[in-house]
């Protein structure tokens, strides 16, 4: 059947190891090892963090005789994850796919192409759904007593839970794209919407109050109220809790019916939206553009800014730390007294407030890792940079500067804001500033070195570089490793000298990393560039 052949081809295109690594696995064992580590780390952090929380929550629910509430979590987490993936991926998978011209010229029915494209989209959704709900399922079965029937019904049901969010959010995604394209504000609004969704999801995931034993307990009432209005949830509950097989069959049939109805409904729509890919709304600007001649470095930095804000997933992932810093800075001023109380609690764990603040900045600055992926993001346009009379060193250093310019000003303003709220001494603020500036320089230039060694020019979608590349993984983790090193150094030196002096030494350490990395790029960048095919 053509459907299966299409799915096979799309799978190879989207999920082959070569696509994930950027090169052949046999030829780059180091990358394969690093990718395996990345996957293991990701899985480990999800299983341990969610596992711990839901295991504890399961205990609490069991004491309250409401263990079945965990099923609501399974259902709603699957729904949220599906909605999230669909809203960011529906456009490129369904409504504006790049291989439309090729597929449209072949004698294949629209609905078959839609079904195959949807299948590939759903695979990613299923992966995330099963990974994130696994700890909850474990907690439910552990505390409620293991039942093979329940396990199978839950696992099978999770194949169908994403169907309703797929339908609803793919249309919402299309509607947004359509309306915003007409209005010509797609990028900005799209970014705000996605950040809103992410922050909303974070708020939902971590909503808690001080009286609660477990941060997830507070979501129960909210989730229960939602389940009252969704017939799906009731059928799912009945199938698992009451072990009602008929309810399960109904659950499956309703979702399958919706899915096939969806294929039928969107087959012509996808045809139209894909046909209109070439149609662009051009707005004439009456603004007088002030053309300037700029230095090569500034030209590259400006290009990096344009690229950054033109790719949603790029902003979302490597700009999220900046958004959190801005929010943190504002909240520090608004909730000044609460922040002071919170920091006093921190000092109870025998760490100076300044160190806690610096660690927070360190983590947030580490999430701004553009220099570790921006060379990869040149993708098929990399030939242009290579053909221009610009040294490899200048390109890499400019990309490093971009990372610094992007994050550091926000970090500095936020530092002043938090210092004001905490009434930190001016000298200490200056020293903290030195640590933050030097940390930003060190992590940014290390990002450039990482990207020089682990570029990924072959990709279909920027997400592969921003989220799934080794550069992105190492870019973020290098910052975290430096934080650990600095933390250990602080601990070891804290009995020997004043905190201010230690922090100056830490700043010096960061600057040393920066200088050595700069020398490395100066010497190696050109030869590494030559090796890129």
């Amino acid at each position: 059947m053509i459907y299966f052949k299409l799915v096979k081809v799309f799978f190879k295109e989207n999920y082959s190891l070569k696509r994930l690594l950027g090169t052949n696995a046999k030829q780059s064992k180091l990358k394969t090892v690093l990718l395996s580590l990345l996957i293991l780390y990701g899985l480990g952090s999800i299983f341990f963090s969610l596992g711990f929380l839901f295991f504890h929550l399961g205990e609490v629910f069991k004491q309250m005789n409401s263990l079945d509430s965990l099923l609501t979590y399974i259902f709603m987490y699957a729904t949220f994850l599906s909605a999230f993936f669909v809203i960011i991926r529906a456009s490129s998978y369904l409504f504006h796919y790049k291989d439309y011209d090729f597929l449209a010229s072949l004698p294949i029915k629209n609905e078959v192409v839609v079904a195959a494209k949807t299948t590939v989209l759903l695979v990613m959704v299923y992966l995330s759904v099963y990974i994130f709900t696994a700890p909850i399922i474990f907690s439910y079965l552990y505390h409620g007593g293991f039942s093979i029937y329940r396990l199978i019904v839950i696992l099978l049901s999770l194949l169908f839970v994403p169907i309703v969010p797929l339908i609803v959010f793919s249309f919402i995604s299309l509607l947004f794209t359509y309306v915003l394209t007409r209005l010509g504000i797609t990028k900005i609004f799209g970014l705000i919407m996605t950040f809103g969704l992410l922050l909303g999801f974070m708020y939902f995931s971590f909503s808690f109050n001080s009286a609660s034993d477990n941060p997830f307990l507070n979501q129960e009432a909210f989730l229960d109220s939602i389940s009252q209005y969704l017939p799906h949830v009731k059928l799912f509950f009945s199938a698992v809790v009451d072990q009602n097989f008929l309810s399960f069959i109904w659950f499956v049939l309703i979702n399958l019916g919706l899915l096939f109805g969806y294929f039928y409904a969107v087959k012509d729509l996808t045809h139209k939206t894909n046909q209109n890919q070439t149609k662009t709304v051009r707005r004439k600007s009456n603004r007088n553009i002030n053309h300037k001649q700029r230095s090569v470095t500034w030209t590259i930095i400006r290009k990096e800014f344009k690229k950054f804000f033109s790719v949603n997933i790029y902003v979302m992932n490597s700009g999220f730390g900046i958004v959190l810093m801005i929010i943190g800075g504002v909240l520090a001023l608004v909730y000044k007294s609460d922040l002071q109380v919170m920091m006093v609690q921190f000092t109870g764990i025998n760490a100076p407030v300044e160190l806690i603040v610096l660690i927070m900045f360190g983590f947030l600055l580490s999430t701004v890792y553009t220099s570790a992926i921006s060379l990869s993001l040149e993708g098929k346009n990399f030939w242009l940079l290579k053909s221009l009379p610009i040294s490899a060193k200048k390109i890499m250093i400019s990309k490093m500067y971009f990372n610094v310019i992007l994050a550091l000003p926000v970090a500095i303003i936020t530092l002043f804001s938090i210092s004001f709220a905490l009434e930190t001494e001016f000298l200490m603020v200056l020293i903290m500033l030195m640590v933050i500036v030097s940390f930003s320089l060190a992590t940014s230039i290390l990002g450039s070195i990482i990207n020089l060694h682990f570029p990924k020019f072959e990709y279909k979608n920027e997400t592969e570089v921003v989220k799934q590349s080794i550069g992105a993984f190492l870019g973020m983790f290098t910052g975290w490793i430096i934080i650990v090193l600095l933390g250990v150094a602080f601990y070891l030196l804290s009995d020997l000298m004043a905190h201010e002096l230690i922090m100056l030494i830490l700043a010096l350490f960061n600057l040393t990393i920066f200088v050595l990395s700069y020398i490395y790029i100066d010497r190696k960048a050109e030869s590494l560039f030559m090796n890129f095919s």
Partner: protein
Amino acid sequence: MLKIENVSKSYDGKKKAIDTINLTIEPGDIYGFIGHNGAGKTTLLKAIAGIHSFDEGQIVIYDHSIKKKPLEAKKIMAYIPDNPDIYESLTGRQYIDFIADVFDIDLDKRNRLIDEYATMFEMTSVLNDPISSYSHGMKQKIVIMGALIHEPKVMLLDEPFVGLDPKASFLLKEVFNKMCEKGSLIFFSTHVLEVAEKLCNKVAIIKNGKIVTNGMTKDIIEDESLEHLFMELLKES
């Protein structure tokens, strides 16, 4: 036969990318489609291939309207784009197998044809390599092989000679001639006027979305060269 009747299309609802196009291409024709950049060549080719919709008129491919019976029309047609941007994770062989599966070509026949065309285009040694490792010309060749594998009655090509080495260009022309002898028709756009002049028995020149002249090549160019005629037509109006 490929009949294009009063076909118009506008992308923005104002300016027509192609305007009331009328062309008839008979079996055995090698029909060259010539025009300046942005004249509407690709738009018309994509409309015929069923990739783009069009606002007015109709396109009929051997009694199958591309609007009403797109699948039937596409089954006897092959389209080769100007940019061979295809599934790079697949090997050349996997790509051709995919196309052959879509067109339901039995294994014996596909093996025979793959051998024949791979030898002809000197692709045998790289057929099992990933397409991502191919040069532009090799990608172009593999797309052409994919198009030829189902022996289409109608072959649409957008700038097919771009990126091909001289030998591959020569071979492609040979393939065109053989296909036409068997009764297929070929409709392709080109900027290479010498190719159109020597290869095509018919040509059409498009300017700003309108056909300014079309018919038998020898009747159109008369004693002039096609290049000379083309430049004159561009100057007019």
